[in-house]
């Protein structure tokens, strides 16, 4: 109840954005435990100074208190002006982990000893000098398939004296894509090719025939790289195989009947991975989207993303 109200308040005060610059609206500041200890000692000195009528001890107490006040400003200053930008993301399978990149930008001043964390993960410490950018990756557990938005990132700093803690809860407009958890089946939910033939076992190269080499292009499967030739210094090339005339498979969502949506997607995911591993071209057909035939790592990526997006917002 209270937690929800707090989240709503945060949502209003610190809305999600692609880039966030920390300012007085976004920074909270409060004494740390040691700050309280420090103030306690200062108060003790005040009592001692009054009772011993010792103005030097009182003076020391006042210097300590003023130092505390000055430190409020400096602790705030250490966060103020820091910009955070949503960076790249790494997808993962549901139940596993994805990762998100956050880019920290120091525009005008150095930001020292920043502790960044979300959830219960151990914080990462970083210092940035003015004019620099630094990127940090944060792991994000993916509990279910689809788009997983990260919780608020806690940016915290105790610099310079550790007497105060300034922090902000940053919500960046970024998300991880969670692919379905692969679920193996014996039957490939595919049309085409040689009808309903058994697909060759994993690890075995299919019945393609070697055709020749072509220069490597990004997105080509690393399995097809001619590593031997590369080792001989002939450059990075990809082996081309002749596609069996009927080797093009259509993985179809509709072919898996009598199962829930997530289970169907899990099976499709398994086959996408397996066919890619076997260097077999495939196409994917979902009720609301279709992926044209293709093969290779990039194709696999597209297929997985399609599976992850299915049923969610476009």
């Amino acid at each position: 109840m209270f937690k929800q109200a707090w989240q709503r308040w945060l949502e209003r005060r610190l809305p999600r954005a692609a880039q966030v610059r920390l300012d007085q609206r976004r920074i909270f500041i409060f004494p740390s435990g040691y700050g309280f200890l420090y103030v306690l000692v200062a108060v003790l000195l005040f009592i001692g100074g009054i009772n011993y009528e010792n103005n030097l001890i009182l003076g020391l107490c006042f210097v300590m208190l003023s130092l505390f006040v000055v430190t409020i400003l400096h602790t705030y200053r250490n966060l103020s002006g820091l910009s955070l930008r949503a960076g790249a993301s790494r997808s993962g399978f549901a139940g596993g982990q994805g990762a998100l990149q956050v880019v920290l930008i120091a525009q005008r001043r150095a930001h020292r000893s920043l502790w960044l964390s979300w959830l219960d993960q151990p914080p990462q410490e970083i210092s940035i000098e003015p004019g620099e950018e630094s990127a940090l990756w944060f792991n994000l557990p993916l509990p279910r398939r689809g788009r997983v938005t990260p919780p608020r990132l806690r940016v915290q700093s105790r610099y310079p004296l550790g007497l105060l803690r300034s922090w902000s809860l940053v919500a960046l407009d970024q998300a991880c894509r969670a692919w379905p958890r692969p679920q193996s089946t014996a039957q490939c939910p595919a049309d085409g090719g040689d009808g309903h033939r058994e697909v060759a076992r994993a690890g075995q190269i299919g019945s393609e025939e070697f055709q020749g080499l072509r220069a490597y292009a990004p997105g080509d499967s690393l399995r097809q790289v001619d590593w031997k030739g590369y080792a001989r210094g002939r450059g990075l090339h990809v082996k081309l195989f002749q596609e069996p005339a009927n080797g093009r498979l259509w993985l179809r969502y509709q072919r898996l009947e009598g199962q829930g949506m997530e289970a169907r997607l899990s099976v499709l995911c398994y086959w996408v991975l397996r066919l890619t591993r076997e260097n077999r071209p495939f196409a994917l057909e979902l009720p609301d989207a279709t992926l044209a035939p293709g093969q290779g790592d990039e194709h696999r990526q597209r297929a997985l993303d399609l599976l992850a997006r299915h049923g969610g917002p476009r």
Partner: protein
Amino acid sequence: MARIYQIPSHARTWLTLGIVAASLPQLLRGPLWQAALLLLVLGWRALIERQRLASPGRLVRLALLVATVAATWRSFGRLHGPEAGTALITSLFALKYLELVSKRDAYVLIVLGYFVCATVLLFYRGPGAALYVSGCLLLLTASLAGINYSDTHARRRQHVRTAAVLLGQALPLAVVLFILVPRVAPMWSMPLGGGQARTGMSDTMSPGQVSSLTESSALAFRVEFQGPPPPPRERYWRGLTYSYFDGTTWSQARPRGWRDRDTLYRGRGAAPPWYQSLLAARGDAAGYRYRVIMEPSQRRWLYALAVPFTDLDGMGLARDWRLVADHAVDTALGYRVHSVPAARAGALTLEQAERDLMLSLPEGGNPRARALAEQWRRQYRDNSARVNAALGYFRQRPFHYTLQPPRLSGDTVDGFLFGTRRGFCEHYASAFTFLMRAAGVPARVVAGYQGGEMNAGEYLQVRQYDAHAWAEVWLSGQGWVRVDPTGAVAPERVELGLRGALQRAGDGADAALGGIGRLPLLFQLRQWVDYLDFNWQKWVLGYRQDQQRALWQRLLGGVSPWRVGLALMVSLAVFAAVLGAWVLLRRRDRPITPLQREFHRLRRALARRDLTAPAAASAAELAALVSRARPTAARAAGHWRCLFEQLAYRGEQPPARAELAALARRRRALLRALRR
């Protein structure tokens, strides 16, 4: 094992230095085992950091703790009180350093360090001590900054710079707090005690004692007058009166049957009649207003000119016009006095018990002095004539003023009056009072200080060698009247002070004063140091309620609580605003290069001439802008641009001073070309 690295190595240096610096004063004055303990801890710590030795286990730490507490108990006989408490805290501080592992330990250690710094100030209070503690503060704050910046790229010096900046920025607010935070009265009394006995007046006087005082040039007290100070011959600082003589020693005494509260009024309860009549006699006479700042004397009596009036806060006025503090003066004490000589007229009656005491003499002894006094008694009916006879006696007989009189024993008064005839104030005061009492004139010895030197025309320094003793006699119709028999023998002692008197007399005793008369430069230097010390005492150590009130009155035009509260709030707000603006809005957070500065200068100069360049203009764009707008200046602009680009883009090598100067010349040439 890895936990040790929670404290970055670049911070450890400052931490160690801070600990040593904060403990050092206590080690110098405390028992020797404390220094040994710290050395042990430092050595152990160094070995731990080189991984030669493991951190001490819980058992070892416990054993060390018990040993430390036991040693403190043995050295001081207790664990509380300032002396023992400071020793204990300093030792615990060292032990805490031994078990330093995590960042948390470091925090606790450093915050404890601030506390140890405060204990230093319990015992050392000079400007030097304050400076020293500021240094400790810098070190401790630097270690605090160090443990909070665990980047491996951090440099040692950086932490000190951070700490210095923070402390520098904190200072103005600290000063404001110092001035404005009200000083309240102590919540409970915490006597420092245990101080060494200092030179100064004692409860008793037996001729021969004051000479040891005279050799000390230590400061007794300082006086700051509002208005002109009294002339030197009137500067009799009364401290205590001796009214009982046992044949060799004078001591303080109360009239028979009187109690403490009959002779001392502390400002509480109804004012006794004698006090009321003094107040009535004071009327609104001007007198002298001044503030005395007394050095610790470990005694209760205070010094003032006759007849002193104060607010009686923490002190009382005795019936014989002395000020008596409620507690022994164990720290520098400042008090304001309004002395009105005319108020003597308020004490014109002498009660019988008092008269008896002031005439009392031992049963026998000193027959020749008694015979001489008896002769005066018969010869003169009037008391003042008897006083003059005695003074005349001192003047006419060959008496000498000297600091090195021969020793006296047996009938000391006879021996002095008819034998040696050499002595200093004590001998004269003692012999004179004896003669007066024997002649039937109530008399008492007064001890205190006489004279004092003005420093920088601002305040009077009274030193231990200004100690003096004189007499007061009771004359009917006049009350107690001061008589200084020393003045009859050596008037220059009263007029010029002891130093002057000795210089004039050419007495060899000059050496007794440490030869200060002979080294004018050294003397001058000492005066300066004393001046600094005086102002320190006055504005820092002695800044108490009364002075605070006076300053508030001057600064704020009033002392009402809301006024002070408002001043505090306003200054806090102004401080926060100014510092906030300075810290947060400072344009140049990143240091800019001389070349960038040159660029911005030209850009601003052009903007003033209505040639505003776009936000991200390059040097080429700047030059093009000029060429387009004022073709006549195109050449000059091209010159500037050429050199600028050459300096900016030639690589690593930063521009030399001469090159920058050339660039500045070209900029000025360009601006001149624009004018044409």
